[in-house]
């Protein structure tokens, strides 16, 4: 049986070929009475219909939580959730927070220090002292 080269299988990467939004669900909680929910109530009335129309892949749930500050909770593909308290915010500020939740991957935030991050192997390979043209001398 002739020797076959190893076949590299393409690893799935979100955004290469297809992009699946990682935010799968957004919960909007408000209070009918409290003043801190005024902006949230305006947002639900004025901004949310357009947002829901633009993002049909996100499941949206609106429910009251009497006597509590308004919260937007994002649920992600990796099983994590991200809640943001939007007390006293106006509707446009809440829209920014919601788009932030929508675009988040669900991962914990990490500091990025390297300019490039890749999952691909290096084309050049790993250097070895035994495989050069000449023996490596120290």
């Amino acid at each position, binding site marked *: 049986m002739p020797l076959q080269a190893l076949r590299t299988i393409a690893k799935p990467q979100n955004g290469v070929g297809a992009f699946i939004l990682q935010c799968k669900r957004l919960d909007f909680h408000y209070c*009918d*009475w409290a003043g801190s929910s005024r902006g949230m109530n305006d947002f*639900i*009335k004025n901004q949310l*219909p357009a947002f*829901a129309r633009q993002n049909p892949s996100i499941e949206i*749930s609106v429910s*009251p939580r009497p006597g509590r500050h308004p919260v937007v909770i994002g649920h992600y593909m990796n099983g994590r959730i991200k809640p943001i308290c939007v007390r006293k915010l106006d509707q446009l500020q809440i829209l920014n927070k919601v788009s932030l939740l929508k675009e988040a991957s669900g991962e914990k935030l990490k500091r990025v220090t390297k300019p490039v991050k890749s999952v691909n192997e290096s084309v050049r390979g790993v250097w070895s002292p035994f495989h050069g043209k000449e023996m490596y001398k120290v």
Partner: protein
Amino acid sequence: MRNVRAASQALRLAGESPRQQYVCRACLAQASRQFHTSPKSLAEEPWWKRMRESVFGSEKSKKAEQSREDKRQKKLEDVAQRPKGELEQRTGARGVDYVVAEVVDTYTHKDYVSSQTWDGLEMIGSEEWVRKRADMGEQYKGFLARKQTQLTNSQWQRLLHHITVEVLTLKKAGHNVMNVCNPRNDGDIPQIANVTIQVKDGKPTLKYENGVDQQSVLSAIDPTPEAPVDEKSLQQELRNATTSSTELPENIQWMAFGLNPTEKLAILKRAMQLTGKRIPDPAISNVRTLTDLYNALKIKEKPKKLAQDPKLDQLKSMGNVQVHATRRTPVHKDKELGRWKLIEDELKIRNLPVFGTNYAGAKLNVVKR
């Protein structure tokens, strides 16, 4: 010397470190009272004089005592001059007649034995006293309707229109406006709904139309009632006032006129008599116009919930949106996933509470925030 000692004690108390033994407030106050920075010579009265007054009484108190004694003597003389058995009668501030108890002079009545106990005396504020006072034979007439009637806002408008027309007609004819609460005469019922109230410069005028005139309105009201109003006729009067084929005015501009206190009382009293609805005293005192009265009486709109807002209809119709009117609980989540049935069954098998706790007194000490 004593003052100096007291002053030094006060200063010592004030200046001592907090590690010292506790000194009660009374002792501190006593110490500070005895401490004077002004010299004794500046005191209005010398110490010995004040002490003498506190023990034997001042000139002023002696005079007051003498005056009381003189009055008592004068009263005894008056009693002696009065025929035996006759008691003094006095009329109080509100026109109530009082009989003043007999004054007995223990010096002149040698057989008088003063009481050693309080048996037989009237105990003010006792339970028996309250019961006696409550039933002194007064005949109270029931005024409010026994059963409160719930009216819609349009019915309130009709009723207030009806009563206001009657009150203004009585006023115009020079009658007592409080007669509006009198029973109605049997006979033709005037169609008061046909009367229009026109408001010009904050003053109302009545425009009688369609066979209703001032006389017909007045003749329906009994000016000198002999019997109190009965419940059945009141209910009939309420039905007459609130049901009419005449359309209501488009707005409540006809109510925008000021009421004087008598008119306000008459309208409110009649409304209370017919419907049994009461409004709080502060609301009554804030009523200046008929509009205010209507606002106080009408059904208050409940604050609107966001879930019922018509702007959310579009949102509700979207496929990816769920709008809930009530709070979502973990039980809802379990129900959506379909595992609630299992949880419930397992809890029941283990004799555990499905919701909350099985202990009856669990929420007794819960302080509601």
